[in-house]
């Protein structure tokens, strides 16, 4: 499963990386070519209302969306790792404080908050700001799950041994506990990226995204705004959705594969 997932993601990444070699990215701009064209040999993904070649749009947009996911996932995970480890290992008042904050924020409906944040931002939303917006709500769940993992690991005999060996708390967290959690964290990270991508697409589809960048979500937004559904221009919204689905399933399979690695009991062979 891990292999299949990696394959899918690799295909998508290569598509975005190698695409510009074959297709002129300027064609992703409006008025680049004839609008409203069905998919053909010249325009394999068709063109939209403003004359953008959708193939070029995908080549530019896919890496953008993935960048959002990666950035948001990284920020969210880093915060989650730091807070989760601290909370889980130190316990006491620190744990209560962190856990209380996390639990409270978790009850807030994410999309609503994201929408309010996104609509309040005055200046133009760039791809990076998009990432940060999504990241702001993606750190809570990792904090919680990492904390519970740390709680179970805290009482392990090798932690007691580390104490007897003279290690202090900080060293124990980073040298003893962290390495053992790596496969788990990798799976978690993959999920975080996945969630970030979906959230960003959700926001963008509502129009709350970078207006000038042809990310996958924005493409869908334009397609909806220009009633592509009714007008029969299926390529405008179907192609981006196809890519989103591909990325989603690919990341899901990577996460599942990593999970299997992290949990030796699930492995079939010895």
């Amino acid at each position, binding site marked *: 499963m891990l292999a299949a997932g990696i394959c899918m993601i690799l295909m998508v990444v290569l598509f975005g990386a190698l695409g510009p070699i074959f297709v002129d990215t300027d064609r992703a701009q409006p008025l680049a070519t004839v609008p409203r064209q069905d998919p053909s040999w010249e325009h394999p993904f068709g063109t939209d209302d403003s004359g953008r070649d959708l193939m070029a749009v995908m080549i530019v947009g896919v890496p953008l969306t993935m960048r959002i996911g990666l950035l948001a996932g990284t920020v969210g995970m880093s915060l989650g790792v730091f807070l989760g480890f601290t909370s889980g290992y130190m316990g006491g008042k620190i744990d209560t404080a962190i856990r209380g904050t996390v639990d409270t924020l978790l009850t807030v409906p994410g999309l609503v908050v994201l929408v309010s944040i996104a609509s309040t931002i005055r200046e133009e939303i760039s791809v990076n700001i998009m990432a940060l917006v999504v990241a702001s709500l993606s750190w809570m769940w990792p904090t919680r799950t990492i904390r519970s993992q740390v709680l179970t690991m805290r009482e392990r005999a*090798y932690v*007691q041994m*580390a104490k007897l*060996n003279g290690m202090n708390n900080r060293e124990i967290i980073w040298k003893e506990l962290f390495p*053992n959690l790596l496969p788990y964290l990798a799976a978690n990270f993959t999920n975080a990226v996945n969630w970030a991508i979906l959230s960003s697409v959700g926001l963008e589809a509502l129009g709350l995204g970078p207006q000038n960048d042809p990310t996958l979500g924005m493409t869908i937004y334009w397609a909806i705004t220009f009633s592509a559904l009714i007008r029969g221009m299926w390529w405008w919204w179907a192609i981006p959705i196809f890519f989103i689905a591909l990325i989603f399933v690919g990341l899901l399979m990577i996460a599942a594969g990593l999970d299997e690695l992290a949990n030796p009991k699930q492995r079939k062979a010895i």
Partner: protein
Amino acid sequence: MPPLLEARNIRKVYHGGGQLLGGEVSETVACNDFSLSIDADNPTFTTIAGESGSGKTTIARMLLGLLEPSSGEVLYQGQDARDLKKDGQQRFRQDVQAIFQDPFEVYNPFYKIDHILTTPIQKFGLAASKTEAYEKIQEALRTVGLRPEETLGRYPHQLSGGQRQRITIARALLLKPKLIIADEPVSMVDASLRATILSSLHTLYQDFGISFIYITHDLTTAYQVSENIIILFHGAVTEAGGTEKVIKDPQHPYTRELIQSIPVPVPGSGWIEEEIEPKEVEDPDAEVHTSGCRYAVRCPAAMDKCQVAPPFFRTEGGRAVSCFLYEDSPVLQGNDLHEVFQARDR
């Protein structure tokens, strides 16, 4: 000179989950008023023996400073272990070391076994260079009967239980401790390797002068290695004294019951055929909640006065029994069993 390590009336109580609304919160006394001191310059080998739930591991953890007692103190060289400053802590960790029961769980599966040996050298500054560190590690491994070329550089799962346990002993040795607390060091090791490991521990005591506190439920191994023994029952000490005497001539009713129940490896001893005296209580390992003698519920000689916890009676210079059957003997002043061990006939 203050003793190396002293437990003064330590007690550990756990408050169980009571009912949510009203109802009593149950209290479990894991350890009830335990006192023992170990000298710095006079090595001793003491066993703390008891069944599961007797509190022996709780005592071990309190002595190692890994668990705080509910009341009483654990003193390192006269100072409370909780109040030690940084260098005091370091010296404490160097002088008092441990060997644990599970020879697998003590290893972080992410690292090679070298990690468990190099870390203390680095943290306690035991070697000036990598070469010196390597030499010390090799020497320690050889002392416990292992070959460095066969053990270093391997992962824990690549070695046998016996090898892993011996590496933990080598680790304890690196710090040149004065006291090693060994919590069931051989119970998870194969029978054929037990003797070898116990032999290493005994050698360390005799040749290196390291004191041992050996925690176990197996009286036969205790008999093999140690000079002094303390028998625990549900958190309280029932009998203490020289191993030879206590095992061959048990005085406390619980000790007697224990020794009788051990299956000896001599066929046809009547262990399975002999009818055990029927007890009043149908469940011998039920929880005990009382402030009196904790063994009274299943003691064949229980009397009314056993409602009160009996003090230690010194039936001989080197033996103390906590049972009213011996109330004619003088009472041990204070509770420190150390006195009892010092006075016993060698």
